[in-house]
């Protein structure tokens, strides 16, 4: 792109250090691994059942970093039913992280499959699939999520299904464009000439080469899926109590926001740290794979 003699001095941008040693990315990775470890380990170590409700009147709304009337220490205090906030927050993290990873990953997989199928089949199949994709893209995702989640019975399964059903469209569009691009490459002709069947060429040659943007979209989508899940759960349309998720814990603390703000705010911190780490890792992956996957100002909570 740039002519050789001038490139050394005048091309200003590569001033930063090499991306692979980016401290920000390493910090994000450490945070995410730490969070994943904590959500697995902390609830196992808890002495009390984080779903059980005990002596509500004496135990509720204990402030962070203090002991309750029974002498038990609570790192982040207790909620309105006297349950330890930190343990519940980690238990909620299991659900929120799983929903984020499964929701985003499965949506990307579905989008890849449909996009590849449309590109490969061409003709009427392509036109119908893409019209359907465009129609779904023309409704703000949040509105689509609200309609689906409210009309069907709210719950964990509904949230995951709805996240997948409303998240595949942009990946399908990208994959379709990539596969159409890949089709023109000589190695596809070569594989054909060697006698490979159409489906084999598609799945073994075209799709793997078109996969970059889908992977980036899946990685960047994890944070977004976690945010959307928390938003639905906040509105009471997602994961239902007593099963904790970060969104419904924030909603549960809402009534005490004036007297015991930590109950609503603490779960949000775990959520923000997780989504931040996911996004930074997604950014890094995008820079590495140099894809043009862009989920920029999309719908979010």
């Amino acid at each position, binding site marked *: *792109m*740039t002519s050789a003699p*001038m490139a050394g001095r*005048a*091309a*200003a*941008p590569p*001033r*930063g*250090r090499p991306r692979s040693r980016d401290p*920000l990315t390493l910090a994000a990775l450490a945070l995410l691994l730490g969070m994943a470890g904590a959500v697995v380990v902390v609830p196992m170590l808890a002495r009390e059942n984080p779903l059980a409700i005990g002596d509500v009147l004496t135990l509720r709304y204990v402030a962070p970093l203090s002991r309750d009337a029974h002498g038990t220490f609570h790192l982040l205090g207790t909620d309105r039913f006297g349950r330890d906030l930190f343990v519940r927050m980690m238990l909620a993290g299991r659900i929120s992280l799983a929903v984020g990873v499964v929701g985003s990953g499965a949506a990307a997989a579905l989008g890849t499959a449909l996009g590849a199928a449309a590109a490969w089949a061409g003709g009427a199949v392509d036109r119908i699939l893409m*019209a*359907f994709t*465009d*129609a*779904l893209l*023309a*409704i*703000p995702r*949040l*509105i689509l999520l*609200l*309609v*689906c989640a*409210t*009309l*069907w*019975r709210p719950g964990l399964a509904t949230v995951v299904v709805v996240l997948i059903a409303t998240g595949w469209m942009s990946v399908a569009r990208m994959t379709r464009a990539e596969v159409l691009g890949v089709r023109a490459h000589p190695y596809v002709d070569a594989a054909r000439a060697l006698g490979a069947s159409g489906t084999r060429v598609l799945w073994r040659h075209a799709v793997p080469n078109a996969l970059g943007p889908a992977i980036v979209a899946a990685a960047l989508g994890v*944070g977004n899926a976690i*945010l959307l899940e*928390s*938003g639905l759960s*906040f*509105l009471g349309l997602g994961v239902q109590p007593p099963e904790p998720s970060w*969104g419904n814990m*924030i909603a549960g*603390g*809402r009534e005490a*926001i*004036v*007297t015991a*703000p930590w109950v*609503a*705010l603490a779960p*949000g911190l775990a*959520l*923000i740290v997780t*989504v*931040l780490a996911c*996004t*930074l890792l997604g*950014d890094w992956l995008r820079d590495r794979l140099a894809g043009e996957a*862009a989920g*920029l*100002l*999309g*719908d*979010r*909570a």
Partner: protein
Amino acid sequence: MSALPVWRRVRDALVLLWLVVSLTFLLVRLAPGDPATMLVPPNASAAETARLRHEFGLDAPLAVQYARWLGDVLTGNLGASFSTGEPVTRVLARAAPISLGLGAASLALTFLIGVPIGMLQAARRGRAADRALTVLTTAVFAMPSFWIALALVAAFTYGAAMVGFPAWLRLPAFGIHTPGADLHGWDELRDVAWHAILPVGILAAIGAAGLARYTRSSVADVLGQDFVRTARAKGASAGRVFGRHVLATVLPALVVLLALSLPGLVAGSVFVEAVFAWPGMGRAMLLAISARDYPVVMASALAYAAAVIAANLAADLVLPLLDPRRRGA
């Protein structure tokens, strides 16, 4: 794409709109739950429920209901709310200005704040200021709006009482009007603006964070281009390079983004409306969905979809005016 004549693009947009509302119709009607059973008292007889179903036209086959609804919409009749009997147009006319005002104010702020931050980051790429701003914008982008809203409510109630905020900093944390105050004209406007500071601020902060992330990467791409190096070599000042060359290159993309993000922003205010108790579109739609108030749900979906499609079309049509590279393609 860009070679298509305007009338074909308008036609395509209308076909898309029809497809969207038909999909929404199917989605809403195929879901379990019967609006009639939600409206009658629990001890109502089956006959009463059946009478209500007949009154709403819900006992007709789905295809007939669809044809009726589509015909009504085409003649400009959006129907009446199942739960209140009020015309849907009046429900929307009351709620839409609130969400639109919220969206427009925060969108303007989003661009005024987000673009300069992104450009600053791109100019200082890889340095401490850029890194700090990257963490800040990514963190704000990671915050759920309802969480920020609750945090601010806590700060202006719990926090204000503990720390003792001065009177001018005691921002109202709920509602759109001062309760009980009978204000008119200029005073009413000032009262609404005062109540809007927190909701608009939250939406603008999140929007600006996302936009700064986008601007940073697109400006950084432009800064690596040959014509920027040429401009610098000719001795153009940094201000001229940014103001004339870089901005002119990224502006079309930003205008498209502006057009595309308005509907999303209006939808995104659902949570802020919920926390601050603002009676906008988000709340109206949320209430309508849970009450199975089909006419209101369908009309708001139609409004949202029309907004998205119109924004897409406008961006498509305006882009050649801003970007000479797209003219006469």
